[in-house]
């Protein structure tokens, strides 16, 4: 539990440490991660890949670590209010999130609060497996964005709160409903124009948590928090 307090402290520090810069007008580009400001009706979407590295303690030699198709989008309902969604898909393991957020900008610095509902599911029907799994979760987050000239840097802190899951194996099925704080994730991302009108996002995401949906196929039973590093890259359409 002391780990949770440490993470909450870090979240607070990263949320309050705003650079005191002169006001500047952000790009009119609609980004999927950088939290604003935007006008009502602005819409951004990106497509790319992400991968979460499963620690050797869980993956051992046998678990394939596949990149997932990574689609992100955001639509601004008002100048401050937006809905956002993300889909990570690779058949074996998939997650879709949908949520709502509120953003406020202080010149080149923007801050957003959001909350997403997550639904994950996976299928394993190859040799030795006749298994499926699905689960739901809640993911509240705080996002800090800083514009450095043409570079848009985003730091996002998420709390990971799985509500429960159901696993099917052959003809049997086991369900569990046990909402609890199961970890945090920190994302540092950059969105920038790499060449003329071609915008990319890339970054790292570090999850410190119980083994969550990414490891369902390993049926990990560890009851301890573990570091899961991840990387992503995408092209903003």
């Amino acid at each position: 539990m002391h780990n949770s307090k440490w993470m909450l402290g870090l979240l607070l520090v990263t949320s309050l440490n705003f650079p005191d810069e002169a006001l500047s007008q952000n790009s009119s580009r609609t980004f999927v991660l950088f939290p604003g400001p935007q006008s009502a009706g602005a819409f951004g979407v990106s497509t790319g890949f992400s991968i979460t590295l499963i620690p050797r303690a869980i993956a051992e030699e046998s678990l394939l670590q596949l990149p997932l198709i990574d689609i992100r989008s955001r639509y601004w309902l008002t100048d401050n209010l937006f809905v956002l969604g993300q889909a990570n898909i690779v058949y074996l393991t998939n997650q879709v999130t949908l949520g709502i957020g509120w953003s406020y900008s202080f010149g080149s610095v923007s801050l957003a609060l959001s909350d997403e509902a997550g639904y994950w599911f996976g299928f394993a029907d190859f040799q030795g497996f006749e298994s499926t799994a699905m689960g739901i979760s809640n993911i509240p987050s705080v996002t800090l964005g800083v514009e450095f000239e043409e570079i848009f840097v985003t730091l996002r802190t998420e709390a990971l709160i799985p509500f429960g899951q159901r696993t099917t194996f052959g003809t049997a099925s086991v369900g569990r409903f046990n909402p609890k704080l199961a970890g945090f994730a920190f994302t540092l991302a950059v969105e920038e124009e790499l060449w003329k009108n071609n915008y990319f996002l890339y970054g790292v995401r570090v999850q410190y948590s119980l083994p969550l949906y990414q490891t369902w196929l390993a049926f990990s039973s560890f009851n301890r928090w573990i570091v899961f590093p991840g990387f992503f890259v995408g092209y903003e359409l």
Partner: protein
Amino acid sequence: MMKILTIPLLAFTVLSCAGEQTVSPLDFGNASLIGQTTALSDTTKTRIEGIYTIEGGEENFGRTVVAKWNGKFLSFFAGTNSAYFALQGGKLDSTLVFEGSWRYAQDLNTGLLRLRIDAQEGGRELSQGMIPSVPVVMRGTFGDGSSQPANPIVLRFARPLTPRNRPFWVIAHRGGGRNSDLLPESENSLGIIQMAEGLGANGVEIDVRLTRDGIPIIYHDENLNPRLVKGEFCIGPIANYTFAHLRTLCTLKNNEQIPTLAEALETVVMKTSLSVVWLDIKSEEAIASVIQLQRQYLQLAASVGRTVELLIGLPSLNAVEKYLADSSHGTAPAICELDVADVRRANAAVWAPAWTLGPMLQKVTEMHNEGRRVFFWTLDGAEFIKVFLDQSMPDGMVTNYPSIIAYEYYVR
């Protein structure tokens, strides 16, 4: 350029910080009382076994624990926090004393524990092998980490274990448990085989590979890697190394030597009461030499009055072919992971399906009707274990957490 480098640098930092946690082995050291005690008789041990209720440690261990002797260990299995106690015991006059450690199997919490049965609470009769005239009460203390136990705990005998009409095997994966669970002995080591009974197992699964010079050793992965071994030059396929090279260059994670299969079987027969060994064949070329060792150590077991089954694992069709090609396969009991048709073809004594295929009651029943047993692998979650105990009546299960299966099975 600097802005582009920021992300990889951060990633490198994060990956470098993922340090490995450890759990140190616990003991009472000079404060131990076990050295002053005399051994308990088998009758006394049997009369201590049963279901106990807990007062004083409910938050840690729940309200009910199962007490079961396995070899030299009196183990307690709890339904809360996947907790277990692994204790050694003896008698001091008319008082029985037990001490050892407790742990939550699935995380890192652990501590020391000492219990006693006083003379007036059953100790007098039990120390003489008699049936106690009063309900047995164990009183003691438990601690956190390596600190001396100070938290009071009381265990009251509630009922004996339910008699069973057939045996059941709790089979510890990789000799007793995985390195990732941070046990004080490495997976597939001689030490963890001796520890397995304390964790609740009455059988073990060990992984067999061949060195370049044809020595059967026990080791799980195809490659030498930091998950399993220490050693500056320990990289690449283990099959590329001679046995002498392995002994010179590498040790297991807790500094033990990589054991030969012969050393592992000698340990099982001479230093434990384990009754089943699943020889999980990772190198199919090893089958002929493993059959020879199987015969040799079954003879040793018979010569010292030990009953133990050594089962040749058949995980693939190639392994079945190699097994059937060996002229002595008819007298070499096997355990087959494939479909029931392959089990029949190999005439394996045990069918071992993956639990992820489901309970498969019909096939389990077919196997039972043919006089074969069924062991599912590798079940770790209590909720899944209950499904298999309820729905398919297997003869055993392989697990990384023997204490969880032991609780779920014996508490019934």
